């Protein structure tokens, strides 16, 4: 009896204490809801994102005194299991907790659903507006036909990245036949369309020998696909596959002895680099904000070192997360307020120099970050920051300047009055 009583009192006391703690925290933190897959086939991609967001926020903002005179940023995780339906439930959940910033990136399908839900929400609740900080969903539509004032994209979109990839392909005269394979949803379709368009412009002599989509997250053995690719005689493959779909595609390709070049969006980290290993040396190319190696600046080198010191088994897989956090922090400081309406206004047209020394700018017209894009190669040559502790990593081979990536937009966004 007495034990029960003490436990009860203790439980009540700790419950009260925790209530007090949360309400005290709520007063001086800026909360960001991190909504991405934390379970299921893409769990590892999502949890890498979460880890890197938390680290960047801690390292770049909170440990340096926070924002607006001491306010800390708090990243709160919500698992959407990569499903748009689940995402909207989690969004409601986050809004219910009074959160006004949402970080999401994995899957453009999810991003489309999220951003249109936020648009509606903001229209109905002008006092509780929400901003979508998109750090990885790259469907061009999000900053074109479906653009929204409340959506900011900190990653180069499919077309911008394909522009960089095809620049590299244009310089490779040995490539005559290209096979395009991707996941069957908005992103995979966008990659395929962009590849066809840019190849026609830059290398009309290249023959596209295959262009196909497979169900996302469902194919485990890609052997039949790579057998087909091999039979088609392709010497380059373009794919936007990510997570398990990229890993399994690469595994199957090595098992049938496919020795073509791979031009990819996401073939690095989260076990993929280790699985590729020596067979993929100088054959797998990755497009993105790059700079894993060489690190270019000491600041960027130090940041990666600090991350490795804290998470020795993990890697910085999203080079854009630190500058997303920095730009967000800069916007809050510039606005002098953590209210979304002020922060959004401050973000428009904002410029920043990333830790790796790249100059980036948030284009006001469509809320697309205009940035230099690097193409890197999978190698073990002069790799300081490897992936998966495998000794293998990415090394930048070329860079397209920000100006040439500023592709035109069709966005006509509705701006809030007042």
């Amino acid at each position, binding site marked *: 009896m007495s034990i029960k009583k003490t436990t009860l009192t203790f439980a009540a006391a700790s419950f009260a204490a925790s209530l007090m703690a949360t309400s005290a925290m709520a007063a001086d933190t800026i909360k960001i809801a991190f909504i991405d897959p934390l379970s299921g086939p893409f769990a590892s991609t999502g949890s890498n994102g979460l880890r890197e967001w938390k680290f960047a926020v801690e390292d770049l903002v909170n440990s340096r005194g926070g924002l607006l005179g001491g306010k800390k940023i708090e990243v709160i995780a919500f698992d959407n299991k990569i499903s748009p339906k689940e995402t909207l439930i989690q969004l409601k959940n986050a809004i219910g907790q009074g959160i006004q910033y949402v970080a999401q990136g994995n899957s453009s399908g999810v991003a489309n659903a999220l951003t249109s839900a936020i648009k509606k929400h903001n229209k109905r609740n002008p006092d509780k507006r929400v901003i979508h900080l998109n750090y990885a969903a790259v469907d061009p539509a999000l900053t074109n036909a479906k653009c929204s004032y409340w959506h900011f994209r900190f990653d180069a979109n499919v077309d911008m990245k394909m522009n960089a990839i095809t620049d590299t392909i244009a310089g490779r005269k040995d490539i005559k036949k290209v096979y395009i394979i991707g996941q069957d949803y908005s992103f995979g379709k966008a990659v395929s369309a962009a590849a066809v368009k840019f190849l026609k412009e830059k290398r009309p002599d290249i023959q596209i020998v295959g262009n196909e989509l497979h169900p996302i997250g469902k194919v485990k053995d890609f052997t039949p696909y790579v057998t087909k690719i091999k*039979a088609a005689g392709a010497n380059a493959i373009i794919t936007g596959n990510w997570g398990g779909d990229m890993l399994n595609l690469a595994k199957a390709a090595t098992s049938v002895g496919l020795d073509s070049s791979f031009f990819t969006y996401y073939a690095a980290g*989260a*076990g993929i680099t280790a699985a590729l290993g020596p067979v993929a040396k100088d054959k797998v190319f990755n497009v993105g904000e790059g700079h894993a190696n060489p690190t270019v600046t000491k600041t960027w080198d130090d940041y990666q070192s600090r991350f490795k010191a804290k998470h020795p088994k993990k890697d910085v897989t999203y080079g854009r997360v630190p500058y997303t956090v920095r730009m967000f922090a800069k916007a809050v400081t510039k606005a002098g307020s953590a209210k979304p309406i002020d922060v959004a206004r401050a973000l428009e047209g904002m410029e920043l120099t990333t830790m790796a020394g790249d100059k980036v700018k948030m284009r006001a017209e469509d809320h697309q970050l205009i940035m230099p894009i690097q193409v890197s190669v999978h190698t073990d040559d002069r790799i300081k920051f490897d992936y998966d502790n495998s000794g293998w990593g990415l090394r930048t081979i070329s860079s397209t300047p920000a100006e040439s990536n500023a592709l035109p937009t069709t966005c006509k966004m509705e701006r809030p009055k007042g």
Partner: protein
Amino acid sequence: MIETTIFSLLNGLVYGLLLFMLSSGLTLIFSMMGVLNFAHASFYMLGAYFAYEMSIHIGFWPALILAPIAVGFAGAALERYGLRNVHKYGHVAELVFTFGIAFLIEEVVQFIWGKDQQPYNAPPLLDFPLFTLFNVDFPAYKAFMLFVSIAIFIALLVVLTKTRVGLIIQAAITHPHMVGMLGHNVPLVFMATFGVGTALAGIAGVIAAPVLGTYPGMAFDLGSIIFVVVVFGGLGSLAGAFVASLMIGIVQTFAVSFNIGMPDLLALLGLEFGADHFLVDLWTISLPQIGPLIPYLMLIIMLIFRPLGLFGSREV
């Protein structure tokens, strides 16, 4: 064309036999105990993770033997201390119990090994192309998978049809009460069957994971398809499970390999639709895109026309 056909056939066979290794255990357990074991694919996952962990310390080959045994014991323990107690509350309780276990195993695996894919790979000894046909390699590891699955199939066949134990099991499948009356220890037979069934799933996990990947979602990904196999083949029928596994394995692989689509069909009919047609997604659909759906389509058709399944004798 010929090379695609040959390789599709080989890959389909590998995949089909893998499905059989999983579905044979499931169907054995079902026919004996009347329980559809929802956690069956979780034991497949356990096999993969056990083998991965063991292979780090003792190498691939000892792990190949020890991991399925460990899984079998885990399965037997689950039957003895879990299912047997739930049994008296009827089949629904058992179903819900195994359903819960599936979630539990997934969470435990994530807790121990995390969410990332584990670098569990084919042993270096088998990491070479066995033969190269039309410039495409056939990996030795796949041949090894084929060999193990066939060996297991033959062993299962011999045990079930030629041994005394097999006779008791067969009898217990159809007349469990009668077997009990004859003085056989039916609970022991149940526990052993559950153990062997889960060990078979464990073997499947050990040999398939280097190809299909070792990650916490692997049970869920394969779970639904093995239910399709056992229902399509006929609940409780091993022969049915065998034929259904091979059919589904081969059909799925062929579907991926041949780029036949609606445009070709429509062209045959002399029809053509513009790229701006409002049903453009439907008119441009191709076989590889719907490949993964085909088994489920086959299941639905089977259930409509023959609810017993291919060789089944029990209603679903």
